[in-house]
């Protein structure tokens, strides 16, 4: 360890990557803390994979710099960076056994580590990913979930400074993906290695990361903890990407401190935290999370007609309609339902939300 614990493990400073006329990543500035679990989240083509590949050394930034543990590494090729990656389709070597795959990184070191040490490290790594005794197997004898664990073991056995994960869960079925998410998180805490995950799955990013970096068109839109992004999205893009939300167009009436008031269709008022660049008199958008809205039979609030109902177990999701606001979602908990009873499609009721439940965002 060269740096102390407060110094960043990695840093992107104005990193830009061009492929011909296409700018895949534009002026990325990002500090990665030692031991954190950071996710790059965004749709395909947003530049998240390019950012990861620049850290791995597969792409050289066209402009700007990459720092690893305080050292500028722009020109350090991938094979000399103390960074390991778990590839999207695992990229396990089909001609080698599980143990030979895992020991590959150690066997590249010069001077060569003693065979016994390598074997012991491989066995430890297999135990860490809960595949003890699978060393002699061939890759094609392993299931998708097992292959992923092997890929993980092959990376962590080298004790990298950064572990890069490129959509590692994309090829797994839903149940397995959920198990792996929990396992990855546990593993990250246990090993203390900095994990950097690239994903387009917001649920995955929200559940696993310490911090999320939301990207669009090669640029960072917002960076923060999952809670920050959920509660304080900067603009519509982030609010839409992180969790479900209802959006209502309107005009900003007033801004006071970090709070704003917006008038929506049918003169419905929305009051809540103001996002970036919200100013009085401007067109804006109110975002209200479905779970912030309650549906009741008593008068008061916005009159709505239930269009559809989806039972989700713990919650019930109602799609309701108001002549002015259009259709929007309400998420009612079991307890709320116990008081108000079930609504059936065609029933009428009133939707209410408290002041401050809305987020007033610019239309970006």
């Amino acid at each position, binding site marked *: 360890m060269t740096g102390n614990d407060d110094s960043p493990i990695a840093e992107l400073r104005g990193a830009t990557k061009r492929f011909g006329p296409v700018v895949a990543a534009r002026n990325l500035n990002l500090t990665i803390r030692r031991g954190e679990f950071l996710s790059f989240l965004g749709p395909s083509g947003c530049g998240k994979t390019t950012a990861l590949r620049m850290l*791995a*050394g*597969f792409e050289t930034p066209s402009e700007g710099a990459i720092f690893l543990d305080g050292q500028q590494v722009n020109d350090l*090729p*991938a*094979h*000399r960076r103390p*960074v*390991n*990656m778990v*590839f*999207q*389709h695992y*990229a*396990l*070597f*089909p*001609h080698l056994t599980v143990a030979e795959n895992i020991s*590959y*990184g150690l066997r*590249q*070191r010069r001077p060569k580590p003693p065979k016994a040490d390598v074997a012991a490290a491989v066995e430890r790594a297999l135990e860490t990913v809960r595949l003890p005794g699978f060393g002699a197997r061939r*890759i*094609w004898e392993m299931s*998708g979930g097992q*292959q992923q664990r092997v890929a993980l073991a*092959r990376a962590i056995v*080298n004790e990298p400074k950064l572990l890069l994960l490129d959509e590692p869960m994309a*090829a797994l079925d839903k149940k397995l993906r959920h198990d792996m998410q929990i396992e990855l998180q546990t593993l990250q805490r246990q090993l203390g290695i900095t994990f950097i995950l690239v994903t387009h799955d917001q649920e995955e990013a929200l559940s696993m990361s310490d911090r999320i970096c939301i990207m669009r068109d090669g640029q960072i839109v917002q960076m923060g903890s999952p809670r920050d992004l959920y509660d304080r999205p900067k603009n519509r893009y982030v609010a839409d990407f992180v969790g479900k939300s209802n959006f209502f167009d309107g005009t900003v009436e007033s801004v006071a401190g970090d709070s704003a008031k917006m008038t929506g269709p049918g003169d419905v008022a929305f009051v809540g935290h103001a996002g970036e660049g919200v100013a009085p008199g401007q067109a804006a958008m109110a975002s209200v999370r479905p779970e912030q809205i309650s549906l009741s039979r008593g008068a008061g609030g916005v009159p709505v007609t239930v269009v559809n109902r989806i039972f989700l177990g713990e919650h019930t999701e109602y799609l309701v309609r108001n002549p002015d606001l259009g259709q929007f979602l309400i998420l009612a908990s079991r307890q709320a339902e116990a008081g108000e009873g079930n609504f059936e499609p065609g029933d009428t009721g009133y939707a209410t939300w408290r002041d401050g439940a809305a987020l007033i965002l610019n239309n970006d």
Partner: protein
Amino acid sequence: MRVYALAVYLFLYIPIGVIAVFSFNAGRYAAQLQGFSTQWYGKALANPFVMEALQTSATVAASSALLATIAGTLAALALQGVGGRPRMIFDALLYIAVMVPGIVIGISTLIALVTLFDWLNPMIASLWPVAGTAPQLHLGTGSLIAAHGLFAMALVVIIVRARVAGMDRSLIEASADLGATPFGTFRQVTLPQIAPAILAGFLLSFTFSFDDFIIAFFVAGSETTLPIYVFSSIRRGVTPEINAIGTMVLAVSLMVLILAQTILRRGGVRAPEE
């Protein structure tokens, strides 16, 4: 349709079958079956001319296949990094090399070599310290190896390149990511991945050279390969001995081809995820 297909196959393979059957003929006439015997195989193998021709053929086939495999594999790997127009030109040249009739290659190679030798020999002679003792470049085993090697190289490039193209690029990146140098990656990942194609390319090159008559006929000079021996013997009449040689050549070629096919197919089998 099926009847026509059957007829075509019969027309193609009956003569070959007849040769194989007659090679076991006990009688000395090629057109008359007189019981089973392997005596002609014994005679063929005891014939010093046959054995010499066989040795020449084997030497030429092995050397040219080795040459073609090395050069062809390197070319296939290098062509990975070539794109656009140069790539199209290379591709076209490769396929032309495979498609051009053997006789054209034979004649053009002969003319090229003879012209080159006529130009080089006086030069070497004039530079040689002792007059009259200078070595003369001439057609022979060397020119056979060169001509076959050149032609077979195109085959190897086509086979190996298909394999290289089918290789998962992320394996190379994974290897680099795990700290392997570019050469380390080549040795530990690329080579094992394309090895079946390289081996198949070698075997195909070997059979091509071993069976080739036309190109060899033009550039062999005073050397005699097995097909050339067979051709010159036939002018004195088809004997069961020739049938025996033909059957042996056929058997060896078929075995090598089947081996090459098996290797290519087995090598093509990958993890079930694909």
